[in-house]
């Protein structure tokens, strides 16, 4: 069972009164649509005293009751948001993290509420705004300015010496845990193994930087969301993931995430980073993107088929696998002898 609005009002008011040492009013608590893994609640907080005095429009983010294990805990996600925010990345401003489960029964954090749309199918049908892919490129470059080692992000572990090789090994492990073999995905992994470029230095990668996780309003980026897969990797992994055809929401000729021109995105990235993007190596990482999405799709399908989590969305994801396989094969056609 999920949290209830009334309980959030009561418990959060008490907690914030302790933290701010003054009167606090929590109001307008509404649950936002969100994943099965986290719950998000919109709420307004009026603080009467101290450095945070004023009215704040916030989101409370906590683990869902079902508690599916993810790579990062809420407090790690909070730290990632804080670090990214300081690096100039457009994110919801993180406010307060609470690891004390006696407050709400689970860990949570508060962040500023941003308004806009993330819906990929909608963004892919809107008129082109050239400034948007440029801005998305700039923002990604800012994420990539964060380089290991960073003490605050020690929970990310050591950067892999060869991110592509690490990804290939991990996806093979994931495939081996499934009941059914997938030769076309194996073909893609084999191609990735044979064609792996020399690694560039690892940076902080978002690892899910794509249309659908980027909140936009009036043609401007207002928030990069969903940091739960962030980790040290090759910066080209994020660029390939963002540009890959499987994340264009049907707008296949808009190669920057279905919302604009690839070169506008590249220019934003190159202007902000001062580094040029190796176009050929991006192609490699776009193959990797399709393989990664195909492996995740297999895992999601298996969650439904095994009965672990009955869901039409997961069931339909199984039927995305063939087009991903076809794309992988088309991208890796061998040269005739």
């Amino acid at each position, binding site marked *: 069972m999920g949290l209830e609005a009334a309980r959030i009002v009561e418990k959060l008011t008490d907690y914030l009164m302790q933290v701010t040492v003054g009167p606090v009013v929590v109001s307008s608590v509404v649950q936002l649509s969100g994943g099965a893994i986290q719950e998000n609640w919109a709420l307004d907080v009026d603080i009467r005293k101290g450095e945070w005095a004023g009215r704040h429009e916030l989101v409370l983010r906590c683990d869902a009751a079902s508690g599916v294990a993810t790579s990062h805990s809420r407090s790690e996600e909070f730290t990632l948001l804080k670090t990214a925010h300081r690096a100039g990345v457009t994110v919801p401003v993180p406010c307060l993290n609470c690891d004390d489960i006696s407050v709400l029964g689970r860990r949570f954090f508060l962040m500023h509420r941003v308004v806009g749309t993330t819906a990929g199918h909608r963004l892919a049908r809107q008129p082109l705004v050239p400034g948007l892919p440029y801005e998305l490129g700039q923002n990604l470059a800012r994420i990539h300015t964060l380089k290991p080692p960073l003490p605050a992000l020690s929970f990310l572990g050591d950067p892999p010496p060869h991110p592509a090789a690490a990804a290939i090994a991990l996806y093979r492990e994931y495939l081996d845990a499934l009941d059914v073999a997938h*030769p076309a995905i194996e073909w893609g992994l084999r191609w990735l193994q044979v064609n792996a470029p020399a690694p560039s230095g690892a940076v902080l990668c978002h690892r899910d930087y794509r249309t659908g996780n980027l909140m936009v309003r009036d043609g401007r980026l207002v928030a990069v969301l969903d940091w739960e897969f962030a980790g040290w990797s090759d910066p080209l992994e994020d660029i390939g993931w963002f540009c890959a055809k499987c994340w264009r929401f049907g707008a296949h000729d808009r190669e920057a995430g279905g919302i604009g021109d690839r070169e506008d995105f590249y220019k934003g990235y190159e202007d902000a980073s001062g580094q040029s993007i190796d176009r050929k190596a991006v192609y490699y990482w776009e193959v990797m993107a399709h393989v990664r999405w195909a492996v995740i799709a297999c895992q999601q399908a298996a969650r439904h088929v095994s009965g672990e989590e009955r869901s039409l969305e997961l069931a339909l994801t199984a039927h995305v696998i063939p087009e991903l*396989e076809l794309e992988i094969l088309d991208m*890796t056609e*061998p040269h005739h002898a």
Partner: protein
Amino acid sequence: MRELPSGAGLLDIARDVLREDLLPALPEGKRYQALMVANAMAIVMRQIEAGEGATDVERTALEVLLGFAETPSGLNSEMARRIRGGKADEVDVWQALHEIAVGKVAESNPKYR
């Protein structure tokens, strides 16, 4: 003999009712789910119409490559194992996998590309 319309025909008309009559009457928050239901029905329709054609193509292609007969699951496992081991990098393997993928996409999402 079964009455007409067949299973695929029933799904076809049921899907029309869902999309044309029910969908516009649904609240915004339920439209995505209804579209998913319509999509699932379309995939089933195409699978019924295709019969075992695509599965037969897959089995034959893999049997030719591997040189023995097996269950579809066994054939896929062996093919995957050979590819991973670097023992199936040839053009004819790619061609077979491509033919299989084209057949599957014709059922799952024929509008792809």
